[in-house]
C-alpha cells in the first residue's frame, strides 16, 4: 500500500514514521490518510484560523469542540456551528444535502444541546440550466425532507446563483441548539476506566474515505473513486436525538461525539486526545450492516445517525435500556485506559496502536505560497456597465427584484418546516430570524450572510463586508451580537493566487470581527471546490447569533405605516463593484468595493442599537444586495404600502440607487419621533429621503412603480 495513493505527502509520511518510531501498518495508514486529510486536519488553514478573535464576554465555548457556545442568560447557552457538505451534494444532491443537515444536528447534540433551529446556505450554478435545476431540486428536497422529519425547523438561509457553482454547488448547513450551561458535554472529560458506547444505526461501507474525497478537487477520476453514497435516515436521527438527550438528562453521559468524517476513528481518537486518556476499541463489537468489512473500513465508516458516548461502567445497563426504548442499537465497543494511545483490536489482534494525539492533532501544517492574482487589476477596473440602464430605471428595479438571487425565496423556505418547536417569531423571509428562548423568555436573532462577488474583487474588504453585513442586520433589529460561526468555501489552496484570496478573505473577516467585537466560536473549512473546468468564487459564509432581551427592544423590518418619514443613514452612495446591479446587467463583477472602515461601522452600530432600543423607528432595514432601490422595494412590498422618495441629486444616481457596501440603512420613523431619531444619528450621515404612503413606489425624477408590479416581479411566477 503506497501512502501517496492514499493522499499522504512525503513530509506527512515521514512525520508519521517519526511519531510512531516505526512504519505504520496498512490499517494505520488508512486512518492517518483520513485523519490527516485537509478536511479533518485543517492543515492548510490552521494558521489562518488563528487570526480570528475567539474571546468575548458571552463566549462559553470557543472553537475546538463540536460546536461553540454563547451565554444567552439565566443559565442557558446556545450551541451553534455551520458546516459544508459540498462535495457529497455535487455527486448526489438529495442525499448529500440531507446528510449535511443530519451531520450538523449531531454536532450540536454532541454538546448536550437540543437542536432548535437550522439554516441552509445554498449556492447554485446558472439559473435555468438543466443541471442546475437537477442539483437545486435535489438539494432543496434533501434539506427539507431531513429537517422536516427530524423536527428541527429551518428558519432561514441564503440562496445564490452564479455560473461559478455550475459544477460545484455549495451546501452549508447551520444548526443551533439550546443547552443548560451546567449540562454542557465536552470531549475533554473522559477518564480511564470508562466505557465507549456506540448508539444508533448499524455500520456499513457508507462514505468511507469521505474526508479524503472532500480534500481534493472533484476530478473525473475522483468521481469514479467516490465513496459509497451516505444515505440519511432522519427518522433514525430523531430517535438518536431523543435518546441522547434523555441520557444527558439522566446525567450518565461523560462525553459524547458525533460520527462525522472519519467515523469511529475520528470521534474516539478525539475524546482520547482531548481527555488525555487511551481508548481501546474492539471492532468486532461494532454492529455491522454488511459482511466482510475490513477493520479499517469499520474504523472509518461514515455511516450516518450514530453517536459515540463515554459512560461509567455502572451506568451501562441504564444506557442500554434507554437505547432499547428508542429502538436503537447500543454496543459497548471499547474502554478508556490511562495513557495516550488509540488502539484498535479485531479478532483478538491489535490492528492499530498509535498515539492518539499524533493521529488527531499533529499533522504538519502546510504553508502554501501566496501571490496576488495576475488579473486582479483587470478585476478591479471598471467596465462599461457603469452607465444608466438602457431600458430605464424602472426596468432596472424590476429586473433586480425578479433575479433569482434577490427575488422572494418563499418557494424554497415554504418547503421547509420553519415553525416546528413553536419558537419562530420572525421566520425566513426577513433580514433576521427571531426565535424565542422558551426557558428564559428572551429571543435569539440569527443571520446568514455571504458575498462571493465582492470577495472575488477584493477578498479582504469582501470578507470584512460579509461579517459587517451580518452584524449590521442584527444590531438594526435591536439584537446584541454574541458570536459568529463561519464556513470558508474556497477552491484549491495549492494555487498561489487562490491561496492569497483565502488568506485575504480570512484577514478581512478577522479584522471586522475584532473591530466590531464579534468572537468566532466555531466554523468549518471546505477547500478544493473546483473541477478541471471551473472553480467557485471565494465564498466565505458567516452566521451570527444575537440576543434580544424583550420584544420591546426588537425593531422589525417591513412595517412601514402611512405618514412615516423615511430616512437614509450612511453615505448616500455605495459602490457598484460586485453589486447586484452589475451581476444582472453585465454578468461580471468589476471594480473596487467600498473598503472596510472600522470607525464608521462602530459609529453606525452604536446609533442603530440606540434606535432600536429607543423605539424611535417603526421599521428598519440595512442596505444589502441591490442597494437603496431594492431596500425600498422590499420594505414597500412587505409593508403593503408605497412611498414617495426624493433623493439629493448631487450623488451619482447609479451608485445612489444601486450602490452597495458600507454601513447604510433605511428607517421609517413616525413624524413625532423624527427629532429624536435625528438626535441619535447626529454625527453620522443622515438624510430624510421621503414619506410613506400611497400604492406606488416613486423616486422623483427616476421611477414610479405600482406596488402590484413590484410584488409581481419579486414573487416571480
Amino acid at each position, binding site marked *: 500500500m503506497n501512502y501517496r495513493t492514499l493522499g499522504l505527502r512525503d513530509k506527512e509520511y515521514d512525520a508519521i514514521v517519526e511519531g510512531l518510531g516505526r512504519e505504520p501498518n496498512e490499517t494505520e495508514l488508512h486512518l492517518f490518510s483520513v485523519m490527516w486529510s485537509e478536511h479533518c486536519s485543517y492543515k492548510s488553514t490552521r494558521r489562518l484560523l488563528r487570526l480570528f478573535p475567539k474571546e468575548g464576554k458571552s463566549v462559553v465555548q470557543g472553537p475546538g469542540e463540536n460546536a461553540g457556545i454563547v451565554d444567552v442568560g439565566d443559565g442557558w447557552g446556545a450551541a451553534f456551528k455551520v458546516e459544508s457538505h459540498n462535495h457529497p451534494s455535487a455527486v448526489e444532491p438529495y442525499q448529500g444535502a440531507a446528510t449535511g443537515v443530519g451531520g450538523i444536528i449531531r454536532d450540536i447534540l454532541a454538546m448536550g444541546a437540543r437542536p432548535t433551529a437550522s439554516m441552509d446556505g445554498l449556492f447554485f450554478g446558472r439559473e435555468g440550466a438543466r443541471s442546475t435545476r437537477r442539483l437545486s431540486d435535489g438539494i432543496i*428536497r434533501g434539506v*427539507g*425532507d431531513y429537517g*422536516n*422529519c*427530524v*423536527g428541527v425547523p429551518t428558519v432561514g438561509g441564503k440562496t445564490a446563483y452564479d455560473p461559478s457553482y455550475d459544477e460545484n454547488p455549495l451546501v452549508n448547513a447551520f444548526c443551533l441548539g439550546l443547552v443548560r450551561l451546567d449540562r454542557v458535554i465536552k470531549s475533554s472529560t473522559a477518564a480511564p476506566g470508562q466505557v465507549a458506547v456506540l448508539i444508533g444505526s448499524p455500520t456499513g461501507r457508507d462514505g468511507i474515505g469521505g474526508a479524503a474525497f472532500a480534500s481534493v478537487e472533484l476530478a473525473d477520476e475522483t468521481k469514479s473513486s467516490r465513496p459509497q453514497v451516505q444515505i440519511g*435516515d*432522519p*427518522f*433514525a436521527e*430523531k*430517535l438518536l436525538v431523543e435518546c441522547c438527550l434523555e441520557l444527558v438528562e439522566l446525567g450518565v453521559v461523560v462525553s459524547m461525539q458525533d460520527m462525522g468524517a472519519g467515523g469511529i476513528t475520528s470521534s474516539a481518537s478525539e475524546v482520547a486526545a482531548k481527555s488525555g486518556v487511551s481508548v481501546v476499541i474492539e471492532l468486532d463489537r461494532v454492529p455491522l450492516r454488511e459482511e466482510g468489512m475490513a477493520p479499517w473500513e469499520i474504523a472509518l465508516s461514515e455511516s450516518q445517525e450514530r453517536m459515540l458516548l463515554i459512560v461509567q461502567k455502572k451506568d451501562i445497563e441504564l444506557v442500554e435500556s434507554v437505547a432499547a*426504548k*428508542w*429502538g436503537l442499537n447500543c454496543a459497548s465497543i471499547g474502554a478508556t485506559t490511562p495513557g495516550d494511545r488509540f488502539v484498535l483490536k479485531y479478532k483478538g489482534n491489535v490492528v492499530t496502536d498509535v498515539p492518539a494525539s499524533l493521529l488527531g492533532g499533529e499533522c504538519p501544517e502546510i504553508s502554501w505560497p501566496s501571490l496576488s492574482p495576475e488579473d486582479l487589476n483587470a478585476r478591479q477596473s471598471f467596465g462599461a456597465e457603469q452607465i444608466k440602464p438602457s431600458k430605464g430605471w424602472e426596468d432596472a428595479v424590476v429586473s433586480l427584484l425578479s433575479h433569482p438571487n434577490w427575488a422572494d425565496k*418563499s418557494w424554497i*423556505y*415554504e*418547503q*421547509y*418546516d*420553519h*415553525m*416546528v*418547536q*413553536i419558537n*419562530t*417569531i420572525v421566520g425566513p423571509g426577513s433580514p433576521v430570524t427571531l426565535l*424565542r428562548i*422558551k426557558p428564559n423568555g428572551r429571543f435569539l436573532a440569527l443571520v446568514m450572510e455571504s458575498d462571493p462577488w465582492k470577495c472575488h474583487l477584493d477578498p479582504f474588504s469582501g470578507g470584512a463586508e460579509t461579517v459587517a453585513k451580518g452584524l449590521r442586520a442584527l444590531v438594526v433589529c435591536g439584537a446584541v451580537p454574541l458570536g459568529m460561526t463561519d464556513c470558508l468555501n474556497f477552491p484549491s489552496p495549492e494555487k498561489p493566487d487562490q491561496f492569497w484570496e483565502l488568506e485575504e478573505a480570512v484577514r478581512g473577516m478577522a479584522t471586522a470581527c475584532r473591530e466590531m467585537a464579534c468572537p468566532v466560536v466555531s466554523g468549518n473549512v471546505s477547500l478544493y471546490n473546483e473541477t478541471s473546468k471551473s472553480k467557485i468564487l471565494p465564498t466565505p459564509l458567516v452566521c451570527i447569533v444575537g440576543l434580544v432581551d424583550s*420584544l420591546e427592544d426588537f425593531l422589525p423590518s417591513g412595517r412601514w405605516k402611512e405618514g412615516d418619514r423615511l430616512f437614509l443613514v450612511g453615505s448616500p452612495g455605495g459602490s457598484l463593484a460586485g453589486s447586484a446591479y452589475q451581476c444582472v446587467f453585465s454578468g461580471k463583477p468589476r471594480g473596487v468595493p467600498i473598503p472596510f472602515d472600522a470607525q464608521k461601522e462602530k459609529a453606525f452600530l452604536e446609533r442603530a442599537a440606540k434606535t432600536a432600543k429607543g423605539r424611535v423607528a417603526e421599521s428598519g432595514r440595512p442596505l444589502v444586495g441591490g442597494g437603496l432601490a431594492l431596500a425600498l422595494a422590499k420594505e414597500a412590498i412587505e409593508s403593503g404600502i408605497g412611498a414617495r422618495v426624493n433623493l439629493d441629486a448631487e450623488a451619482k444616481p447609479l451608485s445612489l440607487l444601486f450602490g452597495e457596501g458600507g454601513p447604510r440603512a433605511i428607517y421609517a420613523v413616525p413624524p413625532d419621533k423624527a427629532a429624536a431619531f435625528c438626535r441619535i444619528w447626529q454625527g453620522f450621515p443622515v438624510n430624510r429621503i421621503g414619506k410613506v404612503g400611497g400604492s406606488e413606489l416613486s423616486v422623483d425624477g427616476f421611477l414610479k412603480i405600482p406596488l402590484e408590479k413590484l410584488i409581481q416581479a419579486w414573487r416571480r411566477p
Partner: protein
Amino acid sequence: MKVAVVVFPGSNCDADVAHAVEVTVGASVEMVWHASEFLPAGTDLVILPGGFSYGDYLRCGAMAARSSIMKDVKRFASSGGLVLGICNGFQILTEAKMLRGAFLPNRTLSFICRPCALRVERDDTPFTLRYKAGQVVRFPIAHHEGLYYLDKDELDAMEKRRQVVFRYATPAGEVTDEANPNGALNNIAGMVNEGGNVLGLIPHPERASEPVLGSVDGALMWQSISEWIKGGGAH
C-alpha cells in the same frame, strides 16, 4: 382538564401541543409512550400530535396506527372520550380507521409550510364551541401528504352527515380551488367521526395559540374543549 399526548417514535409536535394546552387553558398534560397499554386514568382529551411517526415510511401514520396504545385510544373514543389528531395524528386516525378516508401526497408534490386560512364549518362540536360557523381562522400548515381522499359516494354521505369541520378557504371565507393548498377533496382540512368526539385536523392549532406567535386562533380550540369538559361533556 387532563390531556394525554401520545408520543410515537418520530412524533415532533408532541411538546408543542403540550405547551399550547398548558399555557392557554392550564391543562395538566401527560406524555404517553406509544408502547403503553393504557391511557392515564381520568384522561379528558387524547391528542395524537403531528410529526413523522416511523419516518412516514411505508404510508404516513400506518405503523403508528398499529401501536399498542391505539387499542386503548379506540376504546376511549368509543366510550365518548375526546380524541384530536393533528396532521400526522389525523393520518394515524384514518389509518386506524377511527376516521374514514386516506391521505395522498399534496398535489404540488412538495412539503408546504405556511399559514393558511380555514373556514369553520361547525361550531357545535366539543372542539369548536368557541368559534362561529362561517368564521375564518388562520392556522399554519406543514405537511407533505395532506390531500384528503375518499371515494365519491362515501364523501357525499359524509358531507350529508355534516362531518366536515374545517375547510381550506380564502381569507374572505370562500371555499375555492385556489385556496386549497394540497388538493384535498372538498377542501377538507378537518373532520369529525359520526359521534363528533374524534377530530382529525391537518393544520396546526398549536402553532397559533399564543400572541407572540402572531395568532391566537388556535387557542379557541383549547378553550372550546376545556369548556366542554367543564360543562360535564366528559363521558
